[in-house]
């Protein structure tokens, strides 16, 4: 009853603990399977792996080069005067933003484009606001049953996920537009002067309002956009 039995008891204790640990693991797995179907459990695993496997987008967006020469030529053509690098251009045909923040337009380092008042077709007194930032801006125009946003950016935010997406994004029409139907109306995307612009049109009745059911309204707006500001700056 001395050393031998104590040694044997120790060995048995170790063996028991190891067995119990395995059983505990098995019970945990069984419980997991009871809470989720095996298929669901598999989904979690697959999905988690997929999340980790995907590359993250660029953390710091790049800045696209702006063709200020082309912008100056267009501005001269539309206004009959020379584009100065810091002054807001006089463009009386365009809609006129009324919010205070619009005065920051000189900080924006890409051509700020706004639609012509005559083509907006929003009635006599649409609400027009401009939210300029250094690398992008948003103009918002709201009528009774129609909403139009014009957005421009020089930021390069993400890479396309695959070659097919790249091909589609490059597949612009003869005017350089990507015209898309949306749940709320139309969206026209295009690149001009090196910046990316969007016109978003939302109709109260997107299924029946011809400004949303057809492409011509948005297309005309995009073709008539006027340069109302923007200042060349670093990176641009």
């Amino acid at each position, binding site marked *: 009853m001395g050393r031998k039995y104590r040694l044997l008891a120790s060995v048995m204790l170790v063996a028991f603990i190891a067995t119990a640990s395995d059983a505990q693991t098995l019970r945990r797995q069984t419980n997991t399977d009871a809470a989720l179907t095996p298929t669901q459990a598999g989904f979690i695993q697959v999905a988690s792996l997929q999340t980790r496997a995907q590359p*993250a987008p660029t953390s710091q967006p790049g800045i696209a080069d702006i063709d200020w020469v082309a912008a100056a030529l267009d501005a001269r053509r539309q206004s009959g005067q020379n584009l100065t690098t810091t002054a807001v251009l006089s463009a009386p045909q365009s809609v006129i933003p009324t919010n205070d923040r619009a005065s920051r337009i000189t900080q924006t380092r890409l051509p700020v484009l706004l639609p012509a008042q005559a083509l907006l077709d929003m009635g006599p007194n649409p609400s027009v606001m401009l939210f300029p930032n250094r690398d992008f801006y948003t103009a918002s125009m709201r009528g009774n049953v129609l909403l139009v946003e014009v957005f421009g950016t020089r930021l390069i935010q993400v890479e396309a996920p695959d070659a097919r997406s790249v091909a589609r994004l490059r597949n612009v029409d003869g005017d350089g537009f990507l015209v898309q139907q949306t749940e709320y109306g139309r969206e026209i995307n295009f690149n001009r002067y090196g910046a990316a612009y969007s016109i978003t049109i939302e109709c109260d009745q997107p299924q029946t309002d011809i400004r949303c059911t057809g492409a011509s309204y948005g297309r005309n707006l995009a073709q008539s956009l006027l340069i109302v500001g923007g200042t060349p700056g670093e990176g641009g």
Partner: protein
Amino acid sequence: MSRSMEIGTALGIAAAGIAWMIWWPVDGDMVIIPDPEPETIEEEIIEEEEAPETEPEPEPVPEPEPEPAPEPTDDAGDAFVWMPAGDLVSGSGTGQSTQSNYTPGMRFPMEAAQAYANSQVYGAGGYLGPAGGQCDGQNYSYAWHDNFCETRGYGTPMCPSGTGHQGQDIRPATCQAEIHWAVAADSGTITSVGTYSVRMTSDDGVRYSYLHLDMDDLLIEVGDVVTSGQRLGYVSNDFGGTPTTIHLHFEIKMSVDTGAGIQNTHVPPYLALVDSYQGLIDGDES
């Protein structure tokens, strides 16, 4: 004594002498006589001999594996389960399986940590879904489903077919309008409020669209500067008179490098939603 014995005795003495000369400890020419063994050594030896009477060193027992931390759960106590990105409801189109989280750090656009991203059209109560109403329990349970590329006629360049849904539908915790808050996904500016939409541009130039909020009780207006997580309004089913279910249609638009200039487009929001929702459940967001 015989002659042979004498020779043997002589050889033995000689061998002992040689051995003495070889192995006897010396220091230089001086013979070192070892100190007599201390008495204590005997005692120690005795103690060592008695050692078996003490407890033997126990065999190392492996540490049992610690119990894993409990799985974080949503506000209802359920574990978050989600289908992989691009895995649409069967028969609802082909998803974009190559996705990333395009807006890391985004705040989940609903306040509560209980919401269900899935299909309205192909879910119960949807016009192409199984029988049942929009409040059917399967619409308010996991697993989440991506529906960015769900079959529609809307131009969506990042979808395999080139068309899709352009956003992700998310049902709130319960099938009730005007109870569950939609919140700002990031800090930015409210750029427009339509009849059934709210649009926000983040300080980083990312555009977020919220559709179908309760437009009569919005907490924001055009031009407001909002912070991430700030309440915007209730999730509802406003759609300018067109019937729809109680849900948030959520879109993200960003500029994409095409290699031949940049273009703005809708990007898949699913993984940004998954990550931000997981963060909300884990308590990383408030």
